[in-house]
């Protein structure tokens, strides 16, 4: 494999609270190649968003702190970068879109101004050129009559349209990576599909890589090449989409896949959806050993002894579970 575009190695992002250190991200490895779409899945609070925000260095520090690890962006370590160096990467090289399109845009500026702000900043365009670019970007994300809409304010757009504006903004400087942090969670199902299609279309046309963070296994199956499954601040499994859905190794991944409602079998078998019992462990005092052990039906004494490392079980398929120890 050639050098990945983004290579997160052993990343630990902790938060200082009154009760102690919350280990939100506690040793995460994710690599994303050029033009690749990687899904990061896991339930709420597993550290997906914190990982993404750490890559952009958008974590408030304090209380946040990058305790360990490196984030190699085209070979340079983002963790060590100065705020000035980091600013040149944001939006220029890595774009990001968020979960809440309703609140992610500034209500007092026109969408055109907000897109133009990015290109003026990074490409030094004049006001006119920047507005032209904003119109072009709005057209690219399929907003009708962009020449008119460019002068509208965010409140004049619907949720799905606002997410399109966010995508236009994030892609306006043609970044090599787009981080999409649950981009469809706040939207209704038909709009979700449109936004996912749009992301796929953009990737094809502009060729950037996408890090798609979601808790929706369906979204992952449809749009990504490779999937990283996170649990309680750690990566538990990583594989191509086909392998992950066809032959999930980690008991947590197996549980996640079994919990997906299936329209084809549910009707005839009338089975109850399978849920994973128990709750996510506290990230304040995570248990020693495998963090999923307490909820795992295959758990043995070995599981609670030491944290199982992420290791290859097949080419391109990694899992962190003692069941697959040779």
């Amino acid at each position, binding site marked *: 494999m050639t050098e990945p575009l983004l290579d997160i190695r052993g990343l630990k992002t902790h938060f200082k609270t009154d009760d102690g250190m919350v280990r939100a991200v506690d040793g995460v490895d994710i690599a994303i190649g050029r033009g690749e779409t990687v899904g990061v899945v896991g339930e709420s609070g597993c550290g997906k968003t914190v990982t993404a925000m750490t890559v952009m260095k958008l974590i408030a520090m304090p209380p946040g702190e990058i305790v360990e690890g490196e984030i190699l962006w085209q070979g340079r370590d983002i963790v060590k970068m100065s705020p000035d160096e980091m600013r040149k990467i944001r939006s220029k090289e890595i774009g990001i879109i968020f979960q809440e399109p309703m609140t992610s845009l*500034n209500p007092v500026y026109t969408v055109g101004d907000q897109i133009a702000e990015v290109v003026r900043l990074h490409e030094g365009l004049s006001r006119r050129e920047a507005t032209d670019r904003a119109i072009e970007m709005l057209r690219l994300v399929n907003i009708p009559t962009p020449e008119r809409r460019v002068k509208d304010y965010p409140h004049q757009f619907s949720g799905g349209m606002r997410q399109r504006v966010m995508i236009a903004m994030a892609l306006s400087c043609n970044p090599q990576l787009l981080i999409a942090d649950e981009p469809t969670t706040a939207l209704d199902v038909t709009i979700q599909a449109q936004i996912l299609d749009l992301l796929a279309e953009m990737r094809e046309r502009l060729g950037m890589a996408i890090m798609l963070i979601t808790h929706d296994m369906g979204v992952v199956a449809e749009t990504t090449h490779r999937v990283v499954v996170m649990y309680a601040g750690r990566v538990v499994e990583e594989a191509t989409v086909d392998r992950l859905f066809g032959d999930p190794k980690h008991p947590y991944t197996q549980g996640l896949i079994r919990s997906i409602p299936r329209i084809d079998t549910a009707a005839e078998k009338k089975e109850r959806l399978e849920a994973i019992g128990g709750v996510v462990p506290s990230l304040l005092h995570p248990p020693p050993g495998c963090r999923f052990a307490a909820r795992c039906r295959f758990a043995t004494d070995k599981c609670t002894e030491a944290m199982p490392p992420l290791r290859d079980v097949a080419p391109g398929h990694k899992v962190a579970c003692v069941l697959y120890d040779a």
Partner: protein
Amino acid sequence: MSQYLIRRILIALPSLLGISLVLFTVLALAPGDPFGELAQNPAVPPEVAASLREKFGMDDPIWERYVKWLTQMLQGNWGFSFVSRVDVDVLIMQRLPTTLIVIGSSQILALLVALPVGVYAAVRPYSLFDQIATTLAFIGFSLPTFFTGLMLILIFSITLDWLPFVYQSNVEATGLAFYWEHFKQSIMPVSVLGLFQAGVLTRFVRSAVLDVVRLDFVTTARAKGLRERAVIVKHIVRNAMIPVVTLVALQMPAVFGGAVVTEQIFRVPGIGSLLIAAILANDTPVIMAVTFVFACLVILFNLIADLLYGWLDPRISYR
């Protein structure tokens, strides 16, 4: 926009009418009238007093007197002071500029202090700077102006003898010295009013900014690669200003009230001291006119606030 403005002015008219009606009735019902003294004055024969009362319609029904006052006023005749015999509009025009300058400068001072301090405190919440700023702001708006005013007089006029403690409208100087004298005598009243307002505003600006700081679009702004300074000024402060503008406008009646007290302390010959003097002398036409001018100013500032509000927040449309 201009249509909105016209409609707002049209709405303001009935409220002004209502205010004037209430003011007039309360004043008419209040015990004592400008001719009360004449009745006790042995030098004035009772017939003269009675004919004076009749001439000014003092014993007519209130509604009749109100209608008379209103029609006169609409024609530009505001009546004359029973005490000094000077036309009321002349009196007010003599005093109003002084009050507006003192209040205007003190509001500007308050904003100049409150905006940077409040914003800086909010972007570093619970820092040492924030703690000191909030404590000082708390002290600032807890101390009444009549107390801080007297303190300043005691320190700067009496002990140090740096500043005059009586405000004079007829400064005997020309050129630069004239402005210097005016500046010197304005320092204390403006600081007392301004710093009190700054205390109120600082706390408000701080909390308004704190409300905006945690919103998603601030993260978006940072993700664009903007400098922190640009994020604060362009994205945070711009949004935090919307509630601040409302507060500043809604504070205007309180500011005028505070100005009345401050003008008394520093003997500023403004409209506030005119009002106090008129009340003490039962000088009804002056009281009526001054309170009415206050009412107009308050309504005017509310209108300005609404316009600013719509300018700051595109989500508000003038309909």
